[in-house]
């Protein structure tokens, strides 16, 4: 808050030199003017905080709904292998990411249950052989290289550490993306304070500093564990 104090002093110091005639004319110089100055300062200060913390984040992000809804909880009950049942590693060690129709088709060739989303899924996608254009919350920019295998298989990390308890959700949240960069809001954090690097959970934000922070905590260095290489090109290829 030092900035605020300094500003007030500065205003007061400048005042006499700036407008001496008006001061002489005033019946009760001093208190009234100082009070009004503080008031205006506070109004400006409060308004800009509201704009910065509430209006700006709302303006910055645009919203999109997923093409259809998905219930993670219900699917977790049906599978044996947790997240990896659908979000699996391929034989060559690459990570499959969001499932494709091939994985869904065994159960969903016919409409299951009576949800509207299920009907749309089967009619619009499965029967037409068209992949669902899922919006991916955790999609990193194209210039970021990330190996799921190194983190999940070698470092034995939980999915939740980075992705949060998405497996416990019964519905898909609204996808928000940054109007300037085009990237998902989940990378920069959903809460306004995440924008300043503050977070409660490990999965709240997944920016470069968050990668480095975890690497420092876990391994004592920012470099790649498997290659011991440091520098930009470890992740930015």
């Amino acid at each position, binding site marked *: 808050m030092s*900035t*605020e104090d300094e*500003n007030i002093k500065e*205003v007061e110091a400048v*005042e006499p030199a*700036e*407008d001496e005639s*008006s001061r002489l004319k005033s019946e009760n110089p001093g208190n009234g*003017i100082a009070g*009004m*100055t*503080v008031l*205006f*300062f*506070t*109004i*400006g*200060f*409060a*308004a*800009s*905080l509201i*704009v*910065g*913390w509430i209006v*700006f*984040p709302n303006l*910055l992000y645009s919203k999109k709904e997923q093409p259809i809804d998905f219930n993670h909880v219900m699917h977790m009950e049906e599978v044996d292998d947790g997240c990896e049942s659908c979000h699996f590693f*391929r034989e*060559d060690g*690459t990570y*499959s*990411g969001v499932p*494709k129709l091939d994985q869904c088709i065994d159960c969903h060739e016919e409409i299951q249950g009576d949800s509207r989303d299920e009907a749309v899924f089967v009619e619009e996608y499965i029967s037409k052989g068209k992949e669902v254009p899922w919006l991916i919350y955790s999609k990193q*920019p*194209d*210039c970021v290289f990330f190996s799921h295998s190194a983190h999940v298989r070698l470092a034995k990390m939980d999915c939740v550490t980075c992705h949060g308890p998405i497996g416990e959700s019964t519905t898909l949240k609204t996808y928000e993306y*940054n109007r*300037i*960069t*085009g*990237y998902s809001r989940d990378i*920069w954090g959903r809460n*306004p*304070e995440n*924008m*300043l690097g503050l977070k409660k959970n490990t999965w709240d934000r997944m920016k470069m500093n968050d990668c480095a922070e975890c690497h420092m905590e876990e391994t004592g260095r920012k470099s790649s564990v498997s290659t011991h290489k440091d520098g930009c090109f470890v992740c930015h290829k």
Partner: protein
Amino acid sequence: MKIDRRYFLSLGIGAAAGTALSPLPWKSMDDSSIWSQNWPWTPVPPDGEATYENSTCTLCPGGCGITVRKIDDRVIKIEGRKGHPVNDGGICSLGLSGAQLLYSPTRLNGPMIKVNGSFQKISWDEAISKIAEKLTDLRLQGKSHTVAAITGSPRGTVPNLFKRFLDVYGSPNFLYPSSFEDSYSHLAKKTHGQKALPGFDFENADYILSFGAGIIEGWGSPVRMFRANSNWKSRHIKLVQVEPRLSNTAAKSDKWLPIKPGTEAVLALGIAYVILRESLFDQGFINNRTDEFSAWREGVLETYHPARVAGITGIEQETINTIGREFARAKKPIALCGRGEGRTSEGIGEIAAIQALNALVGSIGIRGGAFAVPEPDYIKWPEFALDETAADGLNQKRIDGAGSNQYPDTDSLLHRLPRAILSGKGEPVNAILIANANPCYTLPDTQTVIKALKKIPFKVSFSTYMDETAALSDLILPNHSYLERYEDVPVTWSLAKSLIGLTIPVVSPQLNTKNTGDVIISIAKAMKGSISDAFPWKNYTDCLKTTLGKYWNPLQNNGYMKISNYNPPEKMTKFVFQVPDKTFPVDPEGDEKVLPLILIPNDSMRLSAGSTGSPPFLMKTVSDTVLKDNDTLVQVNPNTAKKYGLKDGGYALLKTPRGFKKVKIYLSQGIGEGVISFPRGLGHTAYDKYLADKGVNFNELIGPVEDPASGLDVAWGIRASLTKV
């Protein structure tokens, strides 16, 4: 209350303070910096499961096996195929850039016809019936022999479909560009009684004497040669490079002999002289497997004393003696030739002189030596009936004089076609079909070639791209890319064990193209009668399957098939010495008084000089001592430059008997005095902005010089002058 300036000021300061404490400025700055790095032109491969398909590269005659990494139906990367007999996992920069050729924006989408000077789209059915009508018309007028076809190579089912089509149609004019293979093939006819292709067992050789062959500049099958070269280095096997210019091969060789250009065969006979004089030759091989040794020996000893050879070639007598001794004393030495990539032929006398070195030391037909590899003969199609018109047409003389009494053993003399068209009365060629070849760029004296082709009333191109020849054509029927089609690839290009590779459709056709094999069959079928009868196949795939018969399945599963081995028939391991005659050294074209310099081409792995244009990735690798902005740099020795007042980086007019071009000067000690050089593969006028109008096409400045024995174009250089501008 009066609101005055001071309150506004405090409001502003408050707002500034509040803003500074909110995420707005920091987040906006961060986002803006990220936004500035959002480059929509950076290609990003799609995400998904990677699959791999094995196929064969056809971008040069090397025949490498490739493994194509795909995500869904998209090619992501082309890699060398591990375990493939040609390249065993290696790949060159051109092969690596193949995906750019597949997705090139200059690919032709569907057949096109030229109307009033510009191309218009037509349907495949229309295009095929237009050709069939035109060719039927010419046939009815008794002009079937005035139809010609040019293919990139004479081997494989597609070129043979063209040949069969011309045969049954009634034209002898099947043409293809010749190379060092054709010279060796000629020699084989003389020495083995049958045509055969050169093969070298480089992997097991222990001394390499290369007369200008660009071992690591694309000679033979390039990746195989790279591997062989590395193998020699690790085994401390000596490579002697005889070449006028310090090429990469020369720079990496154990000994570079900077010879006067064009005198390589003279040096070979000088070396032979040393081996004969000191009786270092393989007496057993000479006695049992060679003919005409005494006469040849006499000829060599009479004319090629090292002192005289030193005078002609510029290589010191003592060096000639040393190389002769080293070569003869090595266990498995190989002498080879074919300048640069080996795309131009050499005189039969020259090639005989160099091959005689292999015979002298018994390096023919044995492990670690040179081989005469029989032509692949897996194409055995049913006989077909010729009608009267066809028989008459086939009896006519070929337009290029190949196979005539003068050159009975020559199959094609493509370089003669332009002159024949321009000097012939009437219209010696009324229609031409051009597939997998770009004569308007690759043939010597390119401007004359273009003038001649313009004179042909009906030109059909089967090119995948809008290359120079396609741009000049009246009808274009674009072929699938090599990653979209089935085709057999006979790989002969200097392999001791030649093989057949197979290209497979790695991805579905991206554009409205058709396999040229299918188009030829369709044209034949549309022409009915005996022509249609000669093409009994349903389509090209059916033709390929039937041709390969029992090999189809193994070839499809394995991707390649060996068709020769180390046990050649006895006659293929013999050698008949050819008494040296006066056919070499071949003089370059031009008057020495007016054009005092000698211009020679050079080849580079960084440029594709053949019918495939260099893709953008490859162009990026070209150094600025070769191409600066859009100017070609000509390599000049500093002493030469001094003599003609030329400065490094300055402009000059390069003149040869065939034309002139503005070039830049690049001073280099890597080239002898009086000799100048720049690479082939630049100066395209067609294709895209990455390739067109960059530098000078070497072929525009050189003309053909014929070998008296074979008629082949053996021009290795041309006289030239450089004038400061």
